[in-house]
Every structure is written in structure tokens, then in C-alpha cells.
């Protein structure tokens, strides 16, 4: 192909069209609003900031507007979270709104079994009539709702209040049970309140970062941005059975046996203790329960830890020394810890390490849970499911009275217990106790653990209502009534991100058909139920924000100093607590700088427990251990949204795939790219074999984004958080026929 002579050829002017309609189409013109050059057709007449609606990082996006409608977006440059960057999901956030399978009208299942479009009046009447019918016949226990970490705090609060106080539903939980419940319980028990202590600046300030069960590179690319901007340069330790992207960037990767991280963490604590690499003065002043912990650690000599984790003693010692030598050590965990049969204790073992080495409350430190969904943190405080509004307890009479007073409702309408968690709601359906279920903005018929059982359970419902952006989600296809919801970008409200930052998202696109915001749907259903009177103050998201602000007063999450949405918009998001500008100044704030925790004695607690074996160990019939998790940065959960972008589709494998070690592939005669059958006691799936040395022998990895994955998983739960343990079950592997 080489033409060595005259390689920088300039064609003759004759017959060469340098301009014309096709050229003009992509010609970049100087852009206003600090955006730089953009194609002419993409030039906005205004921009506005909005917080992304995928993950908990909480990036801000500048939406490019033409006549108040979005025509494009780019990441906000001066937002303290993302510093002008976004991941593929954020860049493509608008394109998924125009998918052809959007739910555009309410749908009711007709006698024939087919879904027929109906008007909103009929939908609301049907909802009320059917749900009330079930309630009359089977009692208040017979209804439940499943909410989400993907809606605005204001919407979650309205849903929680409407369902529990207005409609008298006893049970409600969210998909946050699948992602954050473990961190919630771990923090509550250790700190006295569910309070992730960090701010993202800590990623840049640490000299040692320890990631446990967290593939930040892929799951939270913009948090990884902050790590990459750490100038120190830090030691990065990754504890993960797989050699993930994050492990590739690590200075030390500990490829532990799955679910042996708790042993490792106790072993490291023991080493720190034995070597005197702890901060006795911090422990004495600010914590309680250390003596018992010291005693407990005797059971974790290095030999035991070595045997249980498969990590050489020298590597464990190296980790302990790294922590000891670090001046600002931060610990980070995500789903590898949370989705475990002993997740709460594992998270607390991480917290214990931070407490005993005094690595908390200072810049660049902390025991830090990286949240999953964009508003898991809002859900934790205001969904009114596990906790009463504002991180309160249903069981606490004083708390109930506070809430009743602020909301001006009869205290008797507030339940005296938290009701059932997600898994117990599913059990309740199975047992015939729950007969009507309202699913909002989540997709249990793909995401819930042990899918064949989960679907069997959902099929038993007398009345299943699904409220979603898309009429095609696995769950919506099972529904008796589908309520079409406006999505992110078509409504407004606030999210709370991983670092407790409250951010605003705005309405910048029209909803399709007669889809309504979840907020509007809740208002409509309140009227149809006949409890609209109770929610007269809940007229708009911003009015609810003011109510929530009052509900937060005096609580650790107090954000009473935030005046309104405009203030949030101006400030680039505001972290809780924010009581006023003097007490809570600064845009990068962390908790516990004063060593005061939220327990009555002001001290943090060491919480610990003997480790437990994996509930389902590999055996002769199912000799492999299945790990699940995020596949790529372009995929989100059950893919109801990310599968709708043509660009994102190009960035991840279309077919389900299973990562297999070259050792196992050779033994089983599995070729690269070949279809294999992965099966567990509960079900089986076909997946394409991807042979990677990054997976350990006798382990396989399947991303969670493909619907069949949860046919394999085992419905095991952390006993304290009731969070499902998605990441470890026994499977078999064979070439598919």
C-alpha cells in the first residue's frame, strides 16, 4: 500500500468538494456557555446543570437546551464531584429517553391476558379498587410495595408516606436492599447513624487506598478519576478474587478466596495489634468495645488467615505494614462486601481497621462505603421503608411523634414497626400473606436472587402493579397494571450521592405519551385512594424538599440550611449535614473530625463476629464458584435503560458471557467464544466462554446485566442487613450442546 513518493499529497482543486451539505453537518462552530466548539445543529441557546440519574457518584451534567428542551449534554466542569468528566452512561443519558419501548399510556391486563391501553382515571380507579379489595379481604398485611434507589428523594418520601401512612400498607422495601442495606446496618451499629464519613477529595488526599470488593474503575469510573488525580502517589491495595481493572492499577492485589475477606481483615487487625501498629489514644478516647475485639482477634493467627484466604503470610504482613506506614489511609468497599452472607461484619471489620489505626475523621482517611444507585442515600434516609422518615426508627415513639407533628398527620397512622424486608415480602407472597404488590422503578423479575423462584413468587400475586419508564422490563411484562412513568430528565427532584451530597436534577425533556412523573402518579393515586387530604402540603417536589428539610432538623443528616432548589443549583450540590453556612462551611466536608460519633456515649463501636463458611460451597456436582458483578461501565443493572442506547450497545458484549480461567477451559475442552452451559442447583444459563487469566481456577464470573444470571444465584442473605449474597454460589460448567 505504500507510496513513498509525495506522501503528503494535496489534491488538485479541480473536482474536490471541500464543502457542501455533508461537510456542513458536522462542521464545528464556536460554542457559547463555556462549552467549546459544537456542531451547528447542536448549538444550545442555554445550558443548565443536572445531576446524573445512574450511579451514586452523582456527577453533574450540563444539559444543552434549545427552547427549554435538551438537545445534548456535557459534563459540568466546575462541579466538585466529576470535574468535567462523565462515564458512558452519563454521556448517553438523554438518548435512552426516546426509546420506542417507553411506556406511554397506562396498560391493564384484559381477561384475554393481553395488555390494553386505558386512561389515567381508569388506571387510578383500578389501582385503588383492586388494592383496597385485597386489603379488605386479607388485611393490611396483604399489600406491599417495592421501591428504588433511582427516584428523587422527594418521590421516595411521598411514596413511603402515601403507602404507609395514607394507604395503610404495612410492608415496603426498595432495591437498595440489594445494594446498600449492609452498609446501612454496619454504619448504624458502628457509628450510631448511617453516615458514610467521607468526601471525594479523600480519594486525592490518601497516601494509601484499600479497596475491598470494589472494581471502581468499571463500577464508578468518575471516582476512579479522583484516584488517578491523587498526586502523592498512593499505595493502592485491592482485595478481590478477580484481577479486575482496579487490581491492574493496584500496587498490591490480594486475590482472596471468595468471601474470605472477613478472615483477611481480622487477620490484618490481629497483625496490627500484635505489632503495636495501632493508635491506643484514639481507641481509648473515641471508641468502645476494643478490649473484647482484642480478645476476639486471638482466634485469628496468621496461619489460620493464610489457610482461609489463600493469601501468603508475607502478603498479609505487607498489607498490615502498608496500613501502618500510611499517614492517610482510606478504606473503600462496594458490592463485594455488601452482597455477602456476612457482609455487615465484613464492612464492620473494615471500619474496625480504620478506628484502631485512627484513620478516620482526617483528610484522606475513612471507612468508606461506595454506594451503588444515584439515590440509594436518599432512600436510606427518606424512603420510609426500613427507617422512618429522616433516618428515624418506626419502633421509637418519640420519632413517630416528631414525624406526625411535622407532617401534621395522626400519629396512629404511623406503623410501629418497619415491616418486612424485600426477602420477607417475597416470602410473604409465597406464603399467600401478601397478595397485592406495587413495584416502582425497579425490576425484580431480573434482579432478584434465584430468579426462577422469584418469578414463580411474582406470578402468585393477585394484583401486580408496575410503575416504570419502559413497558418492556421483565417485571412490567408480568404486571396486571402498568403505570407509565416519566424518567430522569423528564422531572425534577434531588438525589443524595455517596459522599452525602444533595444534588438537583431537572426537567429538560417532555415525557412520551401520557407518562407522568412518579411524583404526579403518587399524587393521583393518593386522590383515587381517598387520602389526598393528607398530602395537601406535598404539591410539588420542591414543597416536599422543604418538608424533608424540616424532617432532617436535629438529625445527623440535618440539611435545614439549604434554602431551596436554587441554592442547591448555585452551590454545586451540598453535603449533609448542612445546618448553616458558618457551622458547615466548605464544599468537601467529612464526618467525625471531632471524634464524636452518633451513639449516646459519643463513641464508635467495634463490632465483630466469628466468620461463617459460604452457604453453598463448590462440590462434586457443582465444582465451580460463581462470582457476579458489573460487566462494563456502559451497562447499568438490569439494562432497562442502557440497552436503549445504540452507542452503549456497541460498548459491551451483546450475549451473556462467562469468564473462565485458562486452566479450567483447558481441562473442560472449552474453546474461546464457545457457548457453554453454566448451571446451579436452581437453574442454568447459556453463556459465551471468555477465557481470561484474571479469573482464578475453579471460579467463574458472570455479569449481572444479563437476565439469566440470577437463575443461578442462591437466595442467601446477610442475617443483619437481609441483603442478598449474589456473589457466591456453586455452579457447574459444560460445553453447550
Amino acid at each position, binding site marked *: *500500500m505504500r507510496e*513513498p513518493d509525495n506522501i503528503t499529497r494535496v489534491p488538485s482543486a479541480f473536482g474536490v468538494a471541500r464543502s457542501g451539505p455533508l461537510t456542513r*453537518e458536522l462542521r464545528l462552530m464556536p460554542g457559547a456557555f463555556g*462549552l467549546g466548539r459544537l456542531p451547528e445543529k447542536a448549538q444550545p441557546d442555554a*445550558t443548565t446543570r443536572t445531576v446524573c440519574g445512574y450511579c451514586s457518584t452523582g456527577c453533574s451534567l450540563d444539559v444543552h437546551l434549545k427552547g427549554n428542551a435538551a438537545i445534548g449534554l456535557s459534563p459540568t466542569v466546575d462541579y466538585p464531584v466529576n470535574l468535567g468528566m462523565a462515564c458512558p452512561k452519563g454521556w448517553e443519558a438523554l438518548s435512552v429517553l426516546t426509546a420506542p419501548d417507553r411506556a406511554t399510556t397506562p396498560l391493564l391486563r384484559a381477561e384475554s391476558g393481553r395488555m390494553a391501553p386505558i386512561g389515567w382515571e381508569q388506571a387510578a380507579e383500578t389501582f385503588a379498587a383492586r388494592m383496597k379489595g385485597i386489603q379488605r379481604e386479607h388485611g393490611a398485611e396483604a399489600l406491599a410495595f417495592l421501591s428504588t434507589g433511582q427516584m428523587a428523594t422527594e418521590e421516595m418520601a411521598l411514596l413511603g408516606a402515601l403507602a404507609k401512612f395514607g394507604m395503610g400498607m404495612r410492608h415496603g422495601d426498595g432495591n437498595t436492599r440489594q445494594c446498600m442495606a449492609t452498609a446501612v446496618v454496619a454504619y448504624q451499629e458502628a457509628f450510631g447513624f448511617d453516615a458514610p464519613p467521607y468526601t471525594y477529595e479523600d480519594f486525592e488526599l490518601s497516601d494509601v487506598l484499600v479497596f475491598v470488593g470494589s472494581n471502581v474503575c468499571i463500577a464508578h469510573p468518575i471516582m476512579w478519576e479522583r484516584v488517578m488525580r491523587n498526586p502523592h502517589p498512593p499505595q493502592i491495595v485491592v482485595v478481590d478474587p478477580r484481577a479486575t481493572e482496579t487490581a491492574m492499577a493496584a500496587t498490591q492485589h490480594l486475590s482472596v478466596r471468595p468471601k474470605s475477606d472477613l478472615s483477611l481483615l481480622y487477620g490484618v487487625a490481629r497483625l496490627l495489634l500484635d505489632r503495636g501498629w495501632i493508635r491506643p489514644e484514639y481507641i481509648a478516647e473515641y471508641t468502645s468495645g476494643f478490649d473484647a475485639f482484642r480478645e476476639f482477634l486471638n482466634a485469628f493467627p496468621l496461619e489460620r488467615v493464610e489457610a482461609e484466604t489463600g493469601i501468603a503470610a508475607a502478603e498479609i504482613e505487607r498489607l498490615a505494614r502498608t496500613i501502618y506506614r500510611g499517614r492517610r489511609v482510606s478504606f473503600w468497599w462496594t458490592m463485594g462486601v455488601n452482597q455477602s452472607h456476612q457482609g455487615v461484619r465484613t464492612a464492620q471489620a473494615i471500619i474496625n481497621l480504620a478506628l484502631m489505626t485512627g484513620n478516620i475523621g482526617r483528610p484522606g482517611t475513612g471507612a468508606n462505603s461506595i454506594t451503588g444507585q444515584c439515590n440509594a442515600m436518599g432512600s436510606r434516609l427518606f424512603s420510609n421503608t426500613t427507617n422512618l422518615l429522616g433516618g428515624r426508627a418506626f419502633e421509637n415513639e418519640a420519632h413517630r411523634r416528631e414525624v406526625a407533628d411535622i407532617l401534621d398527620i395522626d400519629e396512629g397512622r404511623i406503623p410501629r414497626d418497619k415491616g418486612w424486608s424485600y426477602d420477607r415480602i417475597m416470602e410473604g407472597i409465597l406464603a399467600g400473606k401478601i397478595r397485592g404488590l406495587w413495584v416502582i422503578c425497579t425490576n425484580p423479575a431480573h434482579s432478584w436472587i434465584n430468579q426462577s423462584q422469584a418469578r414463580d413468587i411474582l406470578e402468585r400475586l393477585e394484583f401486580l402493579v408496575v410503575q416504570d419508564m419502559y413497558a418492556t422490563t421483565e417485571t412490567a411484562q408480568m404486571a396486571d397494571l402498568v403505570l407509565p412513568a416519566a424518567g430522569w430528565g423528564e422531572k425534577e427532584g434531588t438525589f443524595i450521592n455517596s459522599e452525602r451530597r444533595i444534588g438537583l436534577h431537572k426537567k429538560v425533556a417532555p415525557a412520551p405519551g401520557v407518562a407522568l412523573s412518579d411524583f404526579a402518579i403518587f399524587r393521583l393515586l393518593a386522590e383515587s385512594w381517598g387520602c389526598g387530604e393528607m398530602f395537601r402540603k406535598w404539591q410539588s417536589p420542591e414543597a416536599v424538599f422543604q418538608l424533608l428539610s424540616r424532617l432532617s432538623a436535629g438529625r445527623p443528616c440535618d440539611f435545614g440550611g439549604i434554602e431551596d432548589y436554587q441554592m442547591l443549583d448555585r452551590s454545586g450540590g451540598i453535603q449533609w449535614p448542612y445546618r448553616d453556612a458558618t457551622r458547615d462551611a466548605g464544599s468537601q466536608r467529612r464526618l467525625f473530625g471531632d471524634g464524636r460519633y452518633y451513639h449516646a456515649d459519643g463513641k464508635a463501636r467495634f463490632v465483630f463476629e466469628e466468620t461463617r463458611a459460604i452457604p453453598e460451597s463448590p462440590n462434586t456436582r457443582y465444582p465451580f464458584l460463581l462470582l457476579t458483578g458489573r460487566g462494563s461501565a456502559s451497562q447499568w443493572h438490569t439494562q432497562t435503560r442502557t440497552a436503549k442506547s445504540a452507542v452503549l450497545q456497541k460498548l459491551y458484549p451483546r450475549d451473556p458471557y462467562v469468564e473462565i480461567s485458562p486452566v479450567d477451559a483447558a481441562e473442560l475442552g472449552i474453546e474461546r467464544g464457545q457457548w457453554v452451559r453454566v448451571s446451579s442447583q436452581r437453574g442454568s444459563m447459556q453463556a459465551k466462554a471468555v477465557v481470561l487469566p484474571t479469573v482464578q481456577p475453579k471460579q467463574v464470573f458472570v455479569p449481572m446485566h444479563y437476565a439469566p444470571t440470577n437463575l443461578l444465584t442462591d437466595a442467601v442473605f446477610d442475617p443483619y442487613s437481609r441483603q442478598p449474597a449474589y456473589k457466591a454460589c456453586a455452579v457447574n460448567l459444560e460445553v453447550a450442546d
Partner: protein
Amino acid sequence: MSSLPIVNIAPISASGEAAGSAEEFSLVQMLLREQQDLSAVERFAREGATSAAPAAEKYYRALMPAAAPGPGQQYGFEVDLDRCSGCKACVTACHGLNGLDEGETWRDVGLLVGGTRSAPVMQHVTTACHHCVSPACMIACPVNAYEKDPQTGIVKHLDDQCFGCQYCTMACPYDVPKYHAGKGIVRKCDMCSTRLAADEAPACVQACPHQAISIQLVDVQQTVEDAEATNFLPAAPDPQITYPTTTYRTRRVFPRNMLPVDYFQVGPQHPHWPLVVMLVLTQLSVGAFAVGLVLEGAVTGSPAAPMRQLHGLTALVFGLVALAASTFHLGRPQYAYRAILGLRHSWMSREILAFGVFAGLACVYAAALVLLPPGASPMPTWLGGAVVAVGAVGVFGSVMIYATLGREFWSFPRTTLRFLLTAGLLGTATAWLSVVLFALAEPDPDAEQVLASAGRLLCPALILLASAKLLWEASLLRHLLSRSMTQLKRSAMLMTGELSNYTLARFATGLAGGVFVPAILLAKVQSAEGPLDSFGVAVLTAVLFAACLAGEILERYLFFAAVAAPRMPGGIR
């Protein structure tokens, strides 16, 4: 149950208006109206339209060269692999900020894996156009729709100049130019040249959260020297083909077994049906003219002139159909006239010119055969020679189009042999078809004689040519035994794997049309004592011709579909 204040209202239409009585108060209507109202966003402070300077400049300034390229320099992408985490934000930002159409992307991110169980290595690799020193796309382009900027070295595609032949998509070893079927043109990365000209960073550079992509000044001579060491990226195409200017940097040493994660996967390439038809029929036409000339020696007497007429017309018709088919390959056939602009560098221009002249001469030749009285002038014979000679130049052009792309399956000897044998085989088959048609049209003893003598000549020739071609094509399968994943092994794997139905059909039709039926005909011709069963011969000839033609079409389909195309590392597929 309580009643709503909204009962008895007709279903709401998409516009939010009630179909029935609009007077009545309706909560639903109010909510729908609120939902469609986008004015709420106005209450927030707008970013000032006055701030013209790009806000992100503070982050990307360090990723841009301090000065414009000097003599002997050009711009090049530099990727710091230690910072590429595989998030793929660059792909989406390029799509979004450049206003690309749905699903259109100009960047890709691949994955390299290697190492051992105790030290596995995984490396994501972002890639776009390498703005090569010697851009294969530009050299290949028949319409001069590519420019390499003399100062910046940016290889720019001129969208309005392109007529959508897609030759550049085959010529680029990195799979960079992408065909946009909706617009009928190719589009590609231009390093955001207008942004660079205004000191703004390209979209991908702006958008990489980890600052892995930057623009650097590249020394052109250095690039050429570096290419000698072929140290570009594991399993990436040989940099000597085009001298790519992208630099991949890492502090790590890649393990020796580092390979793209999709390295062992083979997939069929685009078959380019119009090109399949065009190539096969041009070769048929040229071959038919050539065999016709040969046949002239064998056929003498009164049938010679009408025979020549018939055969010349047949060959011409196929040639014209071939050229018509080729325009179906163009995204914008109305600009087909531009095809010869690239004569100085593009084999496609040269091929198109040669076939253009071929078609013109062939028309004149056919006209001369029909219009001039037989034996009036020696011109047709002389002209026939010219037609064949120019046609041969055209076929040579066809060979060079593919032989210059550096794909082993399309190497010069392979492609030459393939195309020449097709010309010989189909030329012979067409000549036989002409003879039989002639014999059917004018059933007289002379024609019988021609049929017999031509049959004794053409049928063995067919058997010989077809056997040789099939054997040679089948010999490719020996590469299945190769231990390393060579290009030819990939082709053989495709032919026996995903494309095995095509392969089977190709050999079945090839054997039937090139060996079995000619053998039967030969037997008939040789054993005939009296007049031949002309109907039987006609049916057999129809089968022969159809099978030969189908066989060559399938062969050419495999030529395109089973080629192993070089590419940058891909992802998990």
C-alpha cells in the same frame, strides 16, 4: 371506595387534552399539563452566554502541544495505557460532542490480555484514526476524498467529495473509516481539527476522566523508523503498511503472550455483493472475448462470422451488466464520474478507467462485427485483440485493488491466479454457450461441425481450468493445520466454520459446472456418430453455465467474506 374528582372523563390523548368535556376540573389534565411544561428549568440561573472560552480548558491544557507542528512534524494521538481503565467515555464523548448519528462511533476500545495465573495482565486500549504518515485510505481513494494536512498531518475525509465506494474501509488496516449507509458516504475521525485549530482539545482528549489521551507533536521520520521495529501494539497490524502516528505508552512490560481478547475469534467480513457480481462478470467478459479470439482459429467457414457476432454480443452484455452492478456498490452513484480523479495513486481509479475503455472498445468491436460485412476488413480481429488487452489491464487493476492491501488471502499471486482462472473458466463456458446458442439458432451441418469441434476443444479446457482452480482453492484448507493463528488459517477456519455452507455450495457448483457436466458433454460430442441431440446439449449447457457462474459468484463471495482483515485489538464479543 371514594370517588375522584376526575371521573367520567374520556381517555387523555397524547397531547394532554381531554377528548371529552374540557370544562370539568381534572387532576389528570392538570398533572399532564404540568408534565409537558418544560418552563420550570427557567427559574434556575442560566450559564452566561458570554463565557465563550471553553471551561474545560484548565483540565486539558496539559494534554495539548505547546506549539504547532514544525517541519518534519505532525500531530499525533498519544495514549498513556497506564491511565486507560476501559471506561470508554472517549467513545461516547466523541459521539456526543461531534454530533454523530445514532450508533455512529469513531473511537473504539479494545482489550489486551496475557500473563500467567499468578500475574495476569489486562490492558484496555483506546484507539481512533492514527492519522498515518502514509494513509492507506487516502492512497486508495479513487475520488480524492482524503487530504493529509501538510502542516498538522491530520488525515481528513472530505464528506461531500466521497461517493461511497468504501474502498478506504478495506484499505485501512485499522478499520477506521466507517461507512454511513444512510448518507452513502464514509466518515471518520479528523482529530477534531477545527477544535485543534482553535486550541481546543479533541472531544476524546477532553472527555477522558483519567487524562489518558493527549495530542503530541510527532516526528515523522521517527515514526517511520519506529515502524521498522514493528513495536506498535501486540497483534496490531504491521505499522509499516501506513506508519501510524499514535503512540501507546506504558511503564509496564507486556508479557510475551499478550494478545487481544478477541484474537482467536474469527468473523466473516462484509461480502460486498455488487463487487462480487462486478468482478466475476468483468472477468467473464474479458475471458469470453479472449477465448473468442482463440476459437476463431478453430471455427472456419461460413458459420464463423455469425458465430463471432453472437459471441461478441454475449461477452459485451455480460461486461456491461458487470459495470452496471459496480455502481450499486456506490453510496452516491450519481458521482460515479469522479472515479478517475485518483488515477495517480488509486488502483480503483485505474481499474475503473481500464474497464471504462474496455467497455467502449467492446461496444465498438461488437458494432463492427454486426455492421461490417463479413471479411470486409481485418479491423474486428485487430480490435478484438485490443479489447482483450484493455480488459486484461482492467483485470490487472482489479487484482491490484486487493493485492495492495496487505491481506495474505488477497496477496498478488493468489488474487492474480484466482481472477485469471475465473476469466479463463467463465470465458470458456461463455464461448461454449455461444456455440450452443448458435447451433440451436441455425441448425445446419456446418453448425453441427462447429459444435463438435468446439466441444472437443472447450470441454477439456473447462475441465482442466475448473479442476485446477478448485484444487488450488481447496489447498487453502491446509492452513487449518497451522499451529499459529495466521491470516490464512483464519480464512480456512471461516470457510470450514461459519461459512461452511457457502464453501460446500461453491465446490458443489464448481465440480458440477466445471467437471461433471463438461465430461458428459465431451462424451456426447466424442461418441456422436450422427447429429447431436441438440436439446439435450442445450439443457446440459444451461446447467453447465449456470453452475459455473454460480460457483464463481460463491467463490468471490468467499473471497470477500472469508478474508482475515487486520484490525486493532477488539473487546469481548
